């Protein structure tokens, strides 16, 4: 047995009131607690396998504890409905949850008698999904992706929450790129390092894709939805993390009518000789059109609610095209993903230089629109890109979205910008 692990277990046993964090990601400590129904740890977490999984806790506790779960569902083509997750604590059903995207759940665990000496948590997840059924090279029965689990005495949690209520509140509104910051925020909550109280509003389900030609369109009632959320949350500032889909989709694949363009500030990225040249100004105008549609909604909502709006840039593309394509093939979990895969087969992946240029144009357009609408622009952290401007590979797990580490970097940028404005 690992000596370090023994020491850890002993320390836990000595305490009747447990404050324990189990990290299911690569390099985490989850293996020491896992009983049955687990896959190997991955960068994003550990998959529970099949209909049931369980963990063994080294002691019982004398007062009620909060069990905080950070989990995400398994989304497959045609299988995007929430998955059921029942939590059983020492044969007592304590929660029945529905999991789809990344989510955090707080569950109360009752105090124990002290007779068992240890505790067991069982997770029942009957709706596992098999990637191979969808043509993907993975035959595991994937149920729920566990990222982190934390146990804390209820009195400690309630005391800290009371403190948190006095901290400035911000609402983060975004799509898929928001997840990195959401994870980072959860980590900071765990470490009690949160400068702000954050709430997250995902607009992913509001995307309506009109492939290539028409860009984004949003539900007409979105402005009132965001505004109402702002008013009910009474936040000090709003952080927009919208965007990113446009440059990702347009940059990743060759267009059916392959095109390219110059970026005057980057002579090192000349247009491809075998692509149709489109005037730079027209590309910029298209990008401004897309970005304005996105940020315009936020600006209207925030203005009517009297809240300051900040916008965080989406991360740039990665340099490695092969990995990007592999990840794209794994991401067939939406209509967009399937369309991209179909076009990938037919038209091929765009070169990294093209991806970067599309991002540069959208980034420029975002700055311009922010300036025009009076929105404070927060650039990507300088340390997140290489000297050519590509996203550093270790900060993304899927070639598109940032990891928690990237989220931490962004969160620091946000805190720096917001610190003096809302303290």
């Amino acid at each position, binding site marked *: 047995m690992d000596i370090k692990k023994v020491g850890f277990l002993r320390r836990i046993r000595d305490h009747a009131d447990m404050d324990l964090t189990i990290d299911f990601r690569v390099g985490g400590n989850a293996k020491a607690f896992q009983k049955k129904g687990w896959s190997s740890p991955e960068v994003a977490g550990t998959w529970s396998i099949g209909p049931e999984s369980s963990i063994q806790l080294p002691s019982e506790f004398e007062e009620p504890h909060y069990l905080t779960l950070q989990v995400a569902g398994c989304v497959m083509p045609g299988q995007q409905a929430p998955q059921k997750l029942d939590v059983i604590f020492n044969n007592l059903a304590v929660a029945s949850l529905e999991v789809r995207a990344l989510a955090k759940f707080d569950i109360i665990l009752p105090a124990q008698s002290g007779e068992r000496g240890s505790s067991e948590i069982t997770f029942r997840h009957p709706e596992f999904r098999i990637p191979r059924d969808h043509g993907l090279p993975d035959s595991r029965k994937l149920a729920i992706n566990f990222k982190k689990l934390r146990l804390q005495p209820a009195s400690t949690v309630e005391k800290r929450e009371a403190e948190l209520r006095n901290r400035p509140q911000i609402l983060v509104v975004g799509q898929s790129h928001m997840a990195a910051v959401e994870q980072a925020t959860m980590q900071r909550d765990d470490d009690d390092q949160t400068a702000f109280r954050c709430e997250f509003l995902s607009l992913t389900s509001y995307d309506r894709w009109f492939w290539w*030609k028409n860009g984004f369109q949003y539900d007409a009632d979105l402005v009132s939805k965001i505004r109402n959320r702002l008013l009910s949350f009474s936040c000090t500032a709003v952080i927009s993390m919208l965007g990113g889909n446009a440059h990702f989709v347009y940059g990743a694949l060759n267009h059916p009518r392959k*095109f390219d363009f110059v970026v005057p500030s980057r002579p090192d990225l000349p*247009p491809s000789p075998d692509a*149709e*040249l*489109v005037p730079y100004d027209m590309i910029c*105008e298209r990008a401004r059109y897309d970005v304005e549609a996105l940020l315009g909604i936020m600006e209207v909502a925030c203005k009517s609610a009297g809240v300051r709006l900040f916008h965080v840039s989406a991360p740039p593309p990665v340099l490695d095209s092969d990995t990007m394509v592999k990840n794209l093939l794994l991401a067939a979990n939406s209509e967009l993903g399937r369309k991209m895969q179909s076009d990938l087969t037919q038209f091929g992946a765009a070169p990294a230089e093209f991806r970067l240029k599309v991002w540069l144009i959208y980034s420029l357009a975002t700055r311009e629109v922010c300036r025009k609408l009076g929105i404070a622009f927060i650039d990507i952290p300088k340390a997140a890109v290489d000297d050519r401007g590509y996203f550093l590979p270790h900060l993304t797990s899927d070639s598109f979205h940032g990891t928690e580490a990237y989220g931490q970097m962004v969160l620091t940028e946000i805190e720096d910008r917001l610190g003096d404005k809302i303290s």
Partner: protein
Amino acid sequence: MVNHPYLRRPGYCFWRRAVAEMPVQEVDPVVLAKFKISKSDKVVTAGSCFAQHIARHLKASGFNFYVTETPHPFTSDLSHQQFGYGQFSARYGNVYTSRQLLQLLQRAHGKFTPQEDFWMKQDGRVIDPFRPTIQPDGFANEIEFDRDRQQHFAAVRQAIKNMDVFIFTLGLTETWLSMEDGAAYPICPGVSGGVFDESRYRFENLRVIDIIADLEQSLDLIKQYNKTAKIILTVSPVPLVATMEDQNVLTATTYSKSVLRVAADELAKTNESVAYFPSYEIIAGTYSRGRYFASDLRTVTEEGVGQVMRLFMRHYALAPTAPSITSSRDLRGHETAFDVTEAIVKAMCDEEALDVGTSQDDRQIQPI
């Protein structure tokens, strides 16, 4: 009993019967079309800003307005017109003179390379001297300019090679040329780009023989690549915005239109494949008492354009066509036909810039 040849002339040869006693909208100066255009025929257009109306109406009437330089579908529809797409078959902008047409064909086919390649602005952006307003703020840099021009010339070659009918509207005789190699600019250098330098540029008012020679050379060049193409020449009825001649703009306009009209007729008389269509007469003829001009006495109203195109379709269309654009309501909800016409013409006429920046005093009639 009198007997002379006029007695056997048809009614259209007599002013009273063909013009004076006819309702305005029934005056039809076209007697016989030299050939017909089918809906599948590829029609290419070029010329002054008036020619843009022809393209617009051809499209609306269901003709095959052949466009070889189309905007990329990724770009916003709102920007297409600003960037010179769809005005003509390719992005050459307004081709006002016969010299410009000849040199466009020569340049596209590698037979003429002007010494003056581009005009660089202070901010590093680049203007094409031969289509200075094709992009609102010029090209982003030299690379973009060079690549775009290659694409443009390829589109011109494709249009010339594949077209069935070429409609060219002659607009002006006054032109500015490079002293170095005779390159013809659509607009005086310095107006919409570049810097005017009298040691480098010279004014020329083309004469009939110049225009006939330009058009004949153009025709020869077209025939090298497309032996079966038919040509329709028209003369723009739009008066000059300004003249460089030391004369009143009215007499300068009369000279210019007269010369163009004579040259067009000469070409049509001497070439089986060339026809003349009387746009000029339909709009500017005295019979209409100026009703086809807007209040500035220069802009052609939508009604006037509609009348030109109605007669064009009547005589040149092989089969009945869809109604052409006749109402302003067809166009983006503008209030009046004048508003519509003004919006369209002003957006695309390079020469309008000649009268921007001149003082009110300058516009006064000079004492004789």
